[in-house]
C-alpha cells in the first residue's frame, strides 16, 4: 500500500496534474475553512486562494523552465509549452480577479468563501481545457469551468440583473455544450477514438470533402464560437457581462475566453487541421461578422460593462483572423493577442470595479464623469487601457494588432486586413466616449475617490503588463513563439 502510494507520488501522472491538484486542494480548504471565518475577516479566503494560485503557478513554472513535453494518463492530458503558457496566463488572470474582488464583495454584502472556491475550480477547468489532448478531458474541463461561471454570474443573489445573467448563461451555455458534444460524438464515430491525434489521422484520411466530418466540424465550431462569444452566438455576452459581478465579468471576459481559445486552437489545429479548406472561409466570415457586430453595437452603449462586452466581441473577431491567416505569424499573433487582451481588459474592468461605491453601482457611462478630477491616477490608467484596447502604440494592444495585420497580409488576405484596420477607427470612437466622460466632463459632485489596496495592486500589475510589452515587445514575442511551438 505504502509503496503504491510512493510510486504514485513519483509518477509522471502526479507530476503532470500537480497544478490542478493544488488549486483543487486549496479550493476545498477554502470551502471548509469558510465556516470558521467571521465576516470582517473574509479576505482570509482570498489570501488562501492567492496562496493556492502561487503554488500552482510554481508547479507550472517548473514545467516551463524544464521545457517539459510529456503526455500523461495515457494521452489524456499533455504538458507542453502551449499548456504551460496558457496555464500561467489563467493563473495570472485569476489572481488579478481575486485581488479586485475583495472590496467589491464587501460592498455587495456577498462576501462568501464559495466565491473564491468557485473561481479556483473554474481555473482548474481552464487548465484541463488548455492541456487536454482527448475529447473527454477537454469537454470535462469546459463544463467544469462553465458550471462555475453559471454560479458566479448569479452570485449577487439579491440583484435581479445578476439572476437574469446566470439563467441566460446557463440555458444558452447548456445548449451550446450539447451541440459541442454532438460534434465530439461524430468525431468519435468517425475515428473510433477520443484521442485528438488519432482523430486527426482519421479525419485526414477522409479528407475535407466528407459530409460527416464536415458536420462534426460545424458542430464543434458552433459550440466553441458560443464559448468565445463569436457572432452569431454572441447574444449572451452583453447581458451576462452587465449582470454578473464586475470582477466576474472581467473573469468571464478574459480567462474564459482565453481558455476557450486555447481549446479552440488545439481542436482546429490538430483534429480539425486537415479540414482547413472547409473552415478557413467559415472562420473568415464569422470573424468579419464578429468584428462588425461587436464594434458597431458598441457604438451606442451607455453601460460600460455592455460597451466592453461588445468591444470584447470585436476583439474575438481579430483573434479569429489570426487563425484564418493560418501562418506562423498568425498563430504567434493569437497568443500575443490573448495575453495582451487579458491584461488590458482586466485593467479596464478593474477601473470599472473601482467605480462601485457604497451608494452607486457605477457601471453607467455617466458614472465616469470627471474621474480625472476625482482620481487622476485611475483616469490615466483607464486611458492607457483604452488606448491599448484600441491598438494605439506604444501600448501592448498595438503589438497584438500588428501581428494580426501582418499575418493577414502575409497570407494575402488583404480585404480582411483592410476591414480589421478600419474597425480600429470605429473602436477608437466608442472607447473615447469613456475618455470624454473622464477628462472633459465635470463631475456631478466634487470630491476625491480612493481605490481599495487590492484594486490598486491589480491596476499596477495590469498597467505594467500593458505598457511594458508595448515599449519593449521582445520578451512577449519570444514567449509567444515558444508557446506556439507544439503547433509548428
Amino acid at each position: 500500500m505504502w509503496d503504491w502510494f510512493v510510486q504514485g507520488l513519483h509518477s509522471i501522472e502526479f507530476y503532470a496534474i500537480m497544478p490542478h491538484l493544488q488549486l483543487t486542494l486549496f479550493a476545498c480548504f477554502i470551502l471548509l475553512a469558510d465556516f470558521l471565518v467571521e465576516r470582517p475577516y473574509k479576505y482570509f479566503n482570498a489570501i488562501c486562494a492567492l496562496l493556492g494560485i502561487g503554488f500552482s503557478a510554481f508547479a507550472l513554472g517548473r514545467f516551463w523552465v524544464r521545457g517539459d513535453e510529456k503526455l500523461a494518463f495515457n494521452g489524456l492530458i499533455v504538458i507542453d509549452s502551449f499548456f504551460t503558457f496558457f496555464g500561467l496566463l489563467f493563473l495570472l488572470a485569476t489572481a488579478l480577479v481575486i485581488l479586485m474582488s475583495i472590496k467589491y464583495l464587501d460592498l455587495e454584502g456577498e462576501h462568501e468563501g464559495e466565491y473564491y472556491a468557485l473561481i479556483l475550480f473554474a481555473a482548474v477547468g481552464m487548465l484541463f481545457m488548455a492541456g487536454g489532448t482527448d475529447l473527454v478531458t477537454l469537454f470535462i474541463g469546459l463544463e467544469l469551468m462553465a458550471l462555475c461561471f453559471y454560479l458566479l454570474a448569479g452570485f449577487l443573489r439579491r440583484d435581479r440583473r445578476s439572476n437574469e445573467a446566470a439563467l441566460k448563461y446557463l440555458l444558452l451555455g447548456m445548449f451550446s455544450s450539447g451541440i459541442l458534444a454532438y460534434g465530439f460524438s461524430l468525431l468519435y464515430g468517425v475515428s473510433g477514438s477520443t484521442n485528438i491525434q488519432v482523430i486527426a489521422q482519421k479525419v485526414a484520411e477522409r479528407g475535407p470533402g466528407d459530409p460527416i466530418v464536415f458536420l462534426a466540424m460545424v458542430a464543434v465550431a458552433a459550440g466553441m464560437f458560443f464559448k468565445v462569444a463569436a457572432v452569431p452566438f454572441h447574444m449572451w455576452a452583453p447581458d451576462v457581462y452587465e449582470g454578473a459581478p464586475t470582477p466576474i465579468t472581467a473573469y468571464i471576459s478574459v480567462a474564459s475566453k482565453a481558455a476557450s481559445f486555447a481549446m479552440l486552437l488545439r481542436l482546429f489545429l490538430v483534429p480539425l487541421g486537415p479540414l482547413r479548406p472547409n473552415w478557413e472561409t467559415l472562420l473568415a466570415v464569422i470573424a468579419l461578422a464578429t468584428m462588425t457586430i461587436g464594434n458597431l453595437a458598441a457604438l451606442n452603449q451607455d453601460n460600460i460593462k455592455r460597451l466592453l462586452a461588445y468591444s470584447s466581441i470585436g476583439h474575438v473577431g481579430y483573434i479569429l483572423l489570426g487563425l484564418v491567416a493560418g501562418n506562423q505569424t498568425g498563430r504567434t499573433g493569437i497568443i500575443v493577442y490573448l495575453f495582451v487582451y487579458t491584461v488590458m481588459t482586466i485593467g479596464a474592468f478593474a477601473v470599472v470595479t473601482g467605480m462601485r461605491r457604497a451608494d452607486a453601482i457605477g457601471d453607467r457611462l455617466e458614472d465616469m464623469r470627471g474621474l480625472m478630477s476625482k482620481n487622476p491616477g485611475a483616469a490615466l490608467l483607464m486611458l492607457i487601457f483604452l488606448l491599448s484596447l484600441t491598438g494605439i502604440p506604444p501600448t501592448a494592444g498595438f503589438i497584438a494588432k500588428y501581428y494580426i495585420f501582418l499575418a493577414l497580409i502575409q497570407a494575402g488576405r488583404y480585404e480582411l486586413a483592410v476591414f480589421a484596420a478600419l474597425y480600429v477607427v470605429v473602436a477608437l470612437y466608442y472607447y473615447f466616449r469613456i475618455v470624454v466622460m473622464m477628462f472633459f466632463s465635470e463631475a456631478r459632485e466634487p470630491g476625491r475617490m480612493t481605490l481599495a489596496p487590492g484594486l490598486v495592486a491589480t491596476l499596477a500589475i495590469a498597467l505594467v503588463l500593458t505598457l511594458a510589452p508595448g515599449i519593449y515587445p521582445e520578451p512577449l514575442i519570444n514567449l509567444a513563439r515558444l508557446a506556439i511551438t507544439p503547433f509548428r
Partner: protein
Amino acid sequence: MSLTPENILNWILLTPLVGAVALLAVPGEKKKLIAALANLFAFAGFLVSLPLVFWYDKTQAGFQFTINHDWIPSIGASYRLGIDGISFLLVMLTTVLGFIAILSSWAFIQNRVKEYYIVFLILQTGMLGVFMALDFFLFYVFWEVMLVPMYFIIGIWGHERKLYAAIKFFLYTLLGSVLMLLGILWLYYFHGGLHAPGAACPAIGIAGHTAAEMNTFSIPVYLELGHFLPATLIAKLVFWGFFISFAIKVPMVPFHTWLPDAHVEAPTAGSVILAGVLLKMGTYGMMRFSLPIFPEASREYAPFIATVSIVAIIYGALVTMMQKDMKKLIAYSSVSHLGFCTLGIFALNHLGLAGSLLQQVNHGISTGALFLIVGLLYERRHTRDIAEFGGLSTPMPVFATMYMIISLASLGMPLLNGFIGEFTILLGAWQVNHWWAGLSVLGIVLAAAYLLWLYQRVMFGEVTHAANKGLRDLSLRELATLVPLVVWCFWIGVFPKAYFDVLEKPVALLVQRVEGPQAAPPLAVTLPDTESSEGGTPAGTR
C-alpha cells in the same frame, strides 16, 4: 552624456519628454512655476537643436547624425534616428515653433495648467520623432503617439465645439494611419520576400540573405526598394494607402474637412502647432516615402494629384475669402497654401520639390504667426468675429506692423519668405505643364485678396466698437513670440540660398530615385535668388 554629433538627435528628442516628466513632480497649484519650467524646457529643446545648424554637412545627400540601437530584433525593428536636409529644416521648424507656441500659452491657459504643459511637451517629442525616425516601426509609433496629446489639447483647452473637433481630428487621422500601417506591413512582407533564400532576388546591393536583413523596418533600406516593386494592383493600392494617410494629414481636398474644425476649436498654441508642424507631416511623408518608394505610381498619378492640388489651391482660397471668423479664415488659407506644397512635390522635379519644402517651412512660420495674431486679439476681446474689429491700427501700432509683415509674407510678397517658396514651386510646375503654373497663380492673387481684405477690415478705418478703443498693444512676451518669426520671414526672403544649399543634395537624390536608375542626371538648377528674380521671368531661370 555631453552633446555630440553622435547623440544630438537623442538630446533633441528627449529634452521635451524629460521636461514633461519633470513637470509631473511639481504640484499642480504652482501655475507660474509650471509654466516657467515648461518654457525653460521648450527653450532648451530649441537650444539643443541649434548645433545642428553648424554641424549639418550640406555636401552629403544621405542621412546624418544617425543613431541605431536594436529594439525588437525578432521582427527587425530598431531605434534608428537620422536626418537629411529635408527633415533637418522641419526639425528646426518644430523646435522653434514648439517653443514659441508654449511661450504664447502663458496668459491664455489658466485651467489645468500642469496637464496642458505636460501634454504639450509630449506632443513636441512625438512630432520630432516623426521627422527623425529612420525605422518604419518607430516612425509609426511616433506618428500615432502624437495624436493623443493633440486630441487632449483640442478637447480640453479648445473653444465651444471642442469635443466634436477633437474626436473628428483623431478619427480622420487614425483612419489614414491604419491604412498606412497596412502599407508598411505589406512593404515589410514584400521586402522579406525579396531576400528570402531562393527567391529571385535582384542584386539590390543593400543586403544579403540573412534573417536579420530579411526582416527590417529600416527606412534607408526601403528607400532603395522603389524600383523593385512590381507594377501590380496591390503595389498601387499600397501607394494609395500611404498617400491617403498623408493626404488626410496635409489635408488635401477632399479630406480637408477636419482642418477648419480642429484649427478653429484648438487653443492658440494648438492651432500654431497644428498648422505649423502637424500638417507638414503629410507633405513630409509624401516626400520621404511616397516618391522614393513608389516612383512608378508617383509618376503615373502625379498629373491627377497635381490637379487635385490645384483644385485645393483655388477652392481653398475661394472658401477662405468668404469666412467671417478670423481663425477659420486662416485655417482655410492653409488648405490653399498646402495645395502649393503638394503641387510642388508632384511636379517631381528639383525646383518643385525644393520649393515645396521651403514653402512648408514658410507656411509653418507665417501661418503659425497668423494664428498667434488671432490668438492675441482673442485674448483681448474674446471674439474672433471679423465684424467685431476695425481700426485696430490706432490703438495697437506695433501689433499692426507685425501683422502687416506677416500678412505680406503669407501672401507672397517679394523679399519675404512666401514669395521664394511659391515662386520656386511655380517654376517647377511650369517645367511640367504650363497650365499647372498658370492656374496656380490664381491662388496667389486670391491669397493677396483675402489676407489684405482681412487686414483692411480688422486694422484700418475708424474704431467702430467702443471695446476696441482701449486695446493694449503688445507686451514684451507677446512681442517675443512674433519677432523671431518675422526675422525668420526676412531671412528666408532675402537670403534663401542657405536653405536651397541644404536641400540641394537630398532633393537631387530624391529626384534621381523618382526618375529611376536609367534617368539622366539631375537637372541643372539655377536657384532663384531675390536679386535676379524680382523683375525676372520664369524663362530667365530655365
